[in-house]
Every structure is written in structure tokens, then in C-alpha cells.
């Protein structure tokens, strides 16, 4: 490439009247082409043989950070019990978290306002599998496979199940647009004793959960 200037020298031949110049390659084009070629081995060595993080590593880091966050939340809440769940029902941040999970996982069968569709109405006083918050927690966690209710313990973390339980508890007494007729037995919610000795579970939170418990159950 001895010539560097655009001289517009015509080549000797033409094809069906089309002529060609033999102008040099634009410099910036050549340099950018070389840059992309040189970047290739650099990228490969850095990411596949050097300190660069591959997709799986990045995901693991993202996951670890989240589990740590969940563990902290679980520590703050204490082990699941009627009392703990009842307290969560009074915590707007927890209810809003529960609502997000409810939208993601539950509305397909129970409707956005909990009025029921394929699944039962969650706003009335009648419950198929027990109306204590601990009963609801168990129903969500273990599912009712014969009726099509999924065992969410396999997919959701403990904190998420607690949050969505609290949210479902808070739906009671609301008025949905198209309520499904009541199913199951009438359930009257007991007032919570002061010392926390509620039916279906113990109050308090002495147990210290470890990180494994924060993950979806094995």
C-alpha cells in the first residue's frame, strides 16, 4: 500500500461501463479493524484465562448477595409463628413485598384482588385448609397438589413465603370485584394473646436461622 492519498486513479478495465478507482483504504477504517482484531485475544485471555468473571460467576455473586440480604431479613423477623406473621401484617414494607409476590405467583388463580378464580376466594371467612396464618403459611409452603395448589416452598424463599402469607392474611375482609362463593369452613380468627402463645405456633424469635434456611427449601 504505497499510495496513501486519494488520487482517483482509474483502473484500466471496466465492466459493463462500470469503472473502478483504486483509492487507498481510509486510515480510520484500517485502525479500527486492527483494534477489533487485537481486542479479540485480549478479551479471551482476560475472561477465560484471567481475572475476568464469566457468566456463571457473575450470577453466583448476584445470588450470594441476595441470600445474604434475605438472611438478614429473616434474622430480623424471627422464626415463623402466628405472632411473627401477625406482626408482619402490620408492617407496610412487608405487606408491599408480599403483594409483589402475590402478583407474581398467585393472581393467576386467585385473582388480583384475591376474589378467587380457579383457586378459592381469599377475602372471605371460609377456609378449605385452615384459616390461621400458620395454616395459610403451611398451605402455601406445602401446596395442595390434588387441588392444583403448588408447593411454593420449592420455589420461594422462607421470607417471601412469610411475606405473602401476611399479605394474604391482610386481604381478609376486603371486597373483591367478582368474589367466588365461599368454600370450606367458617373460621373465626382468635385474638392474639399478649404473651404470644397463639394457636398454631409459638411467638418469639430466639432461633437463629442460617443462610441455608434463607434459600428455597431443599
Amino acid at each position, binding site marked *: 500500500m504505497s499510495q496513501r492519498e486519494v488520487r482517483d486513479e482509474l483502473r484500466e478495465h471496466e465492466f459493463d461501463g462500470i469503472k473502478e*478507482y483504486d483509492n487507498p483504504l481510509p486510515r480510520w477504517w484500517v485502525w479500527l479493524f486492527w483494534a*477489533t482484531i487485537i481486542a479479540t485475544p485480549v478479551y479471551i485471555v482476560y475472561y477465560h484465562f484471567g481475572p475476568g468473571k464469566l457468566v456463571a460467576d457473575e450470577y453466583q455473586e448476584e445470588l450470594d448477595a441476595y441470600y445474604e440480604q434475605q438472611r438478614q431479613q429473616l434474622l430480623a423477623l424471627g422464626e415463623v409463628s402466628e405472632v411473627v406473621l401477625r406482626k408482619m401484617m402490620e408492617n407496610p414494607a412487608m405487606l408491599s413485598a408480599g403483594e409483589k409476590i402475590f402478583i407474581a405467583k398467585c393472581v393467576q388463580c386467585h385473582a388480583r384482588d384475591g376474589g378467587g378464580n380457579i383457586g378459592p376466594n381469599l377475602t372471605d371467612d371460609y377456609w378449605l385448609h385452615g384459616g390461621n396464618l400458620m395454616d395459610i403459611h403451611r398451605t402455601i409452603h406445602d401446596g395442595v397438589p390434588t387441588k392444583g395448589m*403448588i408447593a411454593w416452598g420449592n420455589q420461594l424463599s422462607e421470607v417471601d413465603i412469610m411475606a405473602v402469607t401476611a399479605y394474604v392474611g391482610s386481604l381478609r375482609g376486603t371486597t373483591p370485584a367478582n368474589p367466588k362463593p365461599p368454600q370450606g369452613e367458617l373460621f373465626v380468627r382468635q385474638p392474639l394473646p399478649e404473651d404470644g402463645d397463639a394457636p398454631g405456633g409459638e411467638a418469639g424469635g430466639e432461633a437463629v436461622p442460617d443462610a441455608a434456611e434463607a434459600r428455597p427449601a431443599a
Partner: protein
Amino acid sequence: MNVQVERFSYDDRIVRWFLGATMLWGLVGMLVGVFVALQLVLPELNLGIEYFSFGRLRPLHTNAVIFAFTANGIFAGVYYSSQRLLKTRTFSDALSWLHFWGWQAIIVAAAISLPLGLNQSKEYAELEWPIDIAIALVWVVFAVNFFGMVLKRRERHIYVAIWFYIATIITIAMLHIFNNLSVPAGWFKSYSIYAGVQDAFMQWWYGHNAVGFLLTTPILGLMYYYLPKAAQRPVYSYRLSILHFWSLIFIYIWAGPHHLHYTSLPEWASTLGMVFSVMLWMPSWGGMINGLLTLRGAWGKVVEEPILRFFVVAVTFYGLSTFEGPLLSVKSVNALSHYTDWTIAHVHGGALGWVGFMIFGMIYWLAPRLYQTKEIWSRKLVETHFWIASIGIVLYVAPIWAAGITQGLMWRAFDEGGRLMYPDFVETVMRLMPMYWARVVGGSLYLAGAVLCAVNVLATRAQRPARYEEPVYEAPALTPAYQDAPAVSYLRESGAHVARVAYLLERVTSLQFHRRWERLPVVFSAWVGIAVVSASLFEIVPTFLIRSNVPTIATVTPYTPLEVLGRDIYIAEGCNNCHSQQVRPMRHETERYGEYSKAGESVYDHPFLWGSRRIGPDLHRVGGKYSHLWHLRHLDDPRSTTPQSIMPSYAHLIDQRLELDELPRRLRALASLGVPYDRELTEGVEMARAQAQRIADEIVEQGGPEGLENRRVTALIAYLQRLGTDLFREPEHPAPAELPRQARRTDDATD
């Protein structure tokens, strides 16, 4: 020396017919495009007819604009220009007509079979195996006709446009054959010989290079003929032609895996796809530079001449798309863009801008010449077409870019508590509706422009003479005796003392060897073949041979007979056009859909169904997520479970009887591909019946209707409930269907 002068004429009749086919199918393909775009905002527009649903018509749209509009345009442009560039009539008139009618028959077969739900599911390779064989045969007819011309040419050297045509013909044949290898199970059904990761790899090797060698190289060939002809300006740089041609065809082949970033494709392949895509940037821009700089000094003409303006916009969009392509193939950008409309915007920039405007410009340049009128019927109409189509492209591409980025950002958004900000998928779809409406307007404008073009061409044709003139040309035949021009060596001339290697280096970099190749088209074609085959093998061989690419998962077992039928329904309905089956390893995806997809999970997926766009949510982990009854209600009327859903109803699956006659043949075909079926081969029908009965009973138990054990919907539900569940099964129990779907430990599921 006695040089024999030969007389010959050109066959423009075949060009006229291909041009007419281009116009006709262009209108059809774009009309179907507008129709499916409308269905995304008005889902009831499928009129409740199964043949008109999005999943079946979207492949019709893509196939029509690629293989009917673009390919016919290419054939017209190639036949017109090659005859003149090679100074010879087409090799055989009979082959030309066989090519024409064969190709149109293929298009008609596609237009019938795709709405009927006969498809292989692989994108842009949907057509079933008998049509695939026809495509291969007609392509060979085209190749013989073309290379016949090249061999009996009267022009010593082959021009750069011919190089690009050669690369197109060779590479498309290779891609088409190797991606479509399948085992038939009846006339209208086949299973890809590849499965899972390997099938995905082959498909996107094909898919990406179909863009490269059907929507890029032949169009560049057309550009190198029609742009300098229309501008009457010399091509800017011969040496740039050489460099960008060879680098383009060699590098293009490697880039396919960028369609599979963050999937269970091994990461080395993903990385190669990315870095080669980035290296492809400058080779692509070489074509843009040569196109635009050819117009230096002719900008006055561009202002006056609408044809040149079509070409300028086309080349500009080529530059834009070939910058955007490498950008989207960078992994971290792709993490945002993949599965969103950004990809759709990208291909439409290329298709409407680059391919469409090159072909329309070419049509306007050809029409008066082919119909032997002085001028196009109405220049004003050409102007109008140019403006409304240009506005149409902007109105299409800009909102769809915005849609892609919007939805990508919504999918990945977390709140402070680390939970999805938009957990409801349909909320992210609703946000796109205004942009989808804008797209309908943009696409309609583009279609309106094409209508104007058709009117203009027909009106020009109406002014044709009673009899076309067929001018006779004269040129000397090529003689075998030919001396290449002596090599020029600046080093030798300068008399400097340098090592021998410097002379060698000079010979290579001065590109003088290439001039010799240009008069030896067989050698030239062989080098093209070597370039594209070797580049392919570098990735294909390790993908198929290295076992660690696909770690085995003990609990993954083949689909049951009923699930096979359900999967076939999923393919026939084109569910994969809107639903992916590939959860990426990102927390916002695993949070939304479940554990990310592993390579070992799709080893029995003939073909793979990972998808490329999420108009609806991913389905890989849908198994066990909802009750059978939910699926039944949702397929019957999607808006009964998700009020804002834009999914069409699949009520016909509830009405249609489940036919089991085909099942044994299908199971045998799959077994011949290595799927370990045993009892299924003898008792498949009974097994399917038993599983269908079980599901039907469960539906009743859940409060649903009775009598679904012999309905097609039950097979589809069986398949959906199986999806993505094997990973979590306990390894000890072999029987797949009976097990409760539980135990979700994922850490130790892969080897």
C-alpha cells in the same frame, strides 16, 4: 492471432418475471407483517380462526419477506447484472424458467403449509422437509445456471458483484442443507437430527448467516452493480472491495453464537460469537464506505435523482445495522436486549432500510430498461414512495427500539428489598402498547410505499412496446492463452536491499495475486468455499465433539408419548414465536421464572425450542407451576386468567380430537435419532391414552369439565406440565409421569 468475435443477446424476459414476482410477494409479505403487528395490539384480529393466529402467521411473514420478496429481487438483479458483467446470455433458458417456477411453487407451498401449522419451528427454516428438498434442488438449478454463465463468459475477469453472488450461492447451499437435516415422520412432519444445545448452535449458525448471505452479500453485489450504474460514477476503491469481501465472508460465519448469549450454550462459543461480531464491524463498513464514497462528487445528482436517494438511505441503514449488530452481540448489552423488541427493531432497520430500499431503487432503475420505455411512468410517485417509506421506517424502528429497551429494563428492575419491581409479566407488555400502535402506522406507511411502487411499475409496463427489442451484442471469445500483467514491485524498483521475506510481504499486501484469481472463477469459488467451510468447522467440530459442553443430568429422561404429541402441537401452533424456553442465569430471570436452564436438560429436544423473543413469559419452568385446570382455562380464553393478555385463544385444541395414529411413527423417528425409547415403541399408544386419562381425571378433580381424555389440549397440557421439571426429580425413581413434582434443590442437579 485470430480472435473469433461472437454474437449474443441477453435474456431480459426472465428478469421481468422475477421482478414481477418480487413486487407481488413483497406486497403479500408486508401485508402479513402489518396484520401480525395489528394482532399484537388487537389480539382478537385472528378472528378466532386457528390458521390466522400470530404463531402461525409470523413465520409466514418472515419467510415471505426473506425468501419471496428479497430472494426474487436478488434473482432478478443477479440475472440482469450477471449477463452484462460476464457478457453472456444466461447459461440455459430452460434452467432459468425451472428456477423461476420452482421458486414460486416453493413460495406457494410455504404460504399454504405455514398457516396449516406444518413447520419445523426453526426460525427462517420453518418449512417442512419436502419443501426443504425442493429449495435445495431449485438452488442447485440456480447455481448451475449461474456458474454456467461464469464459465462461458466473454469477460476475462470477474467483477466484485460476481464475487458476492458466488459467496451467496455457495454459502446458502451449505447453510440450508446442514441446518435442515432431519428424520421424517410422515410427509408433513420431521424431527431435527440435532438436539438441544447442538440444534440451537446449528440453527443460529444458519439463522445468522442467512442474514449474512441472503440479506447482505447478494445485496452488496447488487449495490456494486446498480449504484455505480445509476450514479455513473466509478467505484471508490478496488482494494477496499477485495479486503472487505474476504474479511466479511470469513468473519461472518463465526458470529452466529451471539444469538445464544447467556443460554446453556457453552461460554467459549458465546465468546467467539461476540468477538467475531465485533471484528465484523469494519468489514461490513467497508461496503458502506465503498457505496457512499462512490457518490463523492455526485451529491448534486442524489438530490435530483430519487433512485440514488433510495440507494443512499439503503447504504446508510446498512451502516447503522452493521454497527448495531456488533453492539448487540456484546454480552452485557445482549443481557438487556435479548428476548426484547430491540432485536426486532434491529432486523427491521436492516430489512426495511437496507434490503428494501436497495431492491426498490433497483426496481425503479430496471423498470424503464426492462419494459423499454424512456422513463419510469411517474417520477413524482417515486418521490412520494421514497418519503413515505422513509418516514415509515423511522416510525417503525424508533418506537420498537424504545419498546425493547423499556421492556428489558422493566424485566430486570428490583426494588430495595431485592424483589422484582414488575413481577407481573403482562404489565411489561401493556407498557409497550402505544409503541406497538406506532409500529403499525410505520409498517402501514412502508406497505403503502410498496403499493405505489407496484402501481408505478405496472403503469410503466403498460407503456411497453408491442415487441421488445432484443439487441445483439458482439464480443470476442476468451482464448486460453493469457498472460497476467507483470507484477509491479516498488521494492525492486527502489533498488533497496531487503530480505526476501519483504518481497513476499509486498506481494501479499499489494493484492496483485487477487487479480489472477479474478480470471480463475473456479479457483476463486474454491477459496470462498474454503473460507466459509473452515470458519464453520472451527466452531461446529468442538460443539459436537467435546462432551463437557453438555454435562449429563441423570434425572433427565425422554418425553412420554403423550408429551411428544403435546410438543408437536406446541411446534405446530408456533408457541415458540412468543415464548422462550431458556431461563438465563440472572437473578431477575430466576426470580421470575425459576432455576436457569441447563445444557443437559434439552438433550432430547429435537428440535430445540429455546425461542428468541418473549412476547409472553418464558415457559421453561412452567411445569407444575399452575394446575391443569388453569392451563385449560388459559388456553381456552387467555383473558379469563390474565385479563390484559394478548395471547390468542386456542379453544380449537379443546374441540379437536387427539389422534394417536401418527404416534408410533413419530416415536420410531425419535428413537432412530437416539432417544432411548423402549416400551414406548410397542405400547406408545396405550401409554399416551393412560396418561391422557390421568390428566383428564385430575382436571375433573380440580373442578374442570369431563371428557378431555381424547382432546388435543390434554397432550399440550401434559407437555407443559413436564417442562423443566426433570432437573428436580429424585434420581432413584425411574417412572417419570407418576411422580409428584417436588424437591427443588438445584445445586447438585448438574454433574
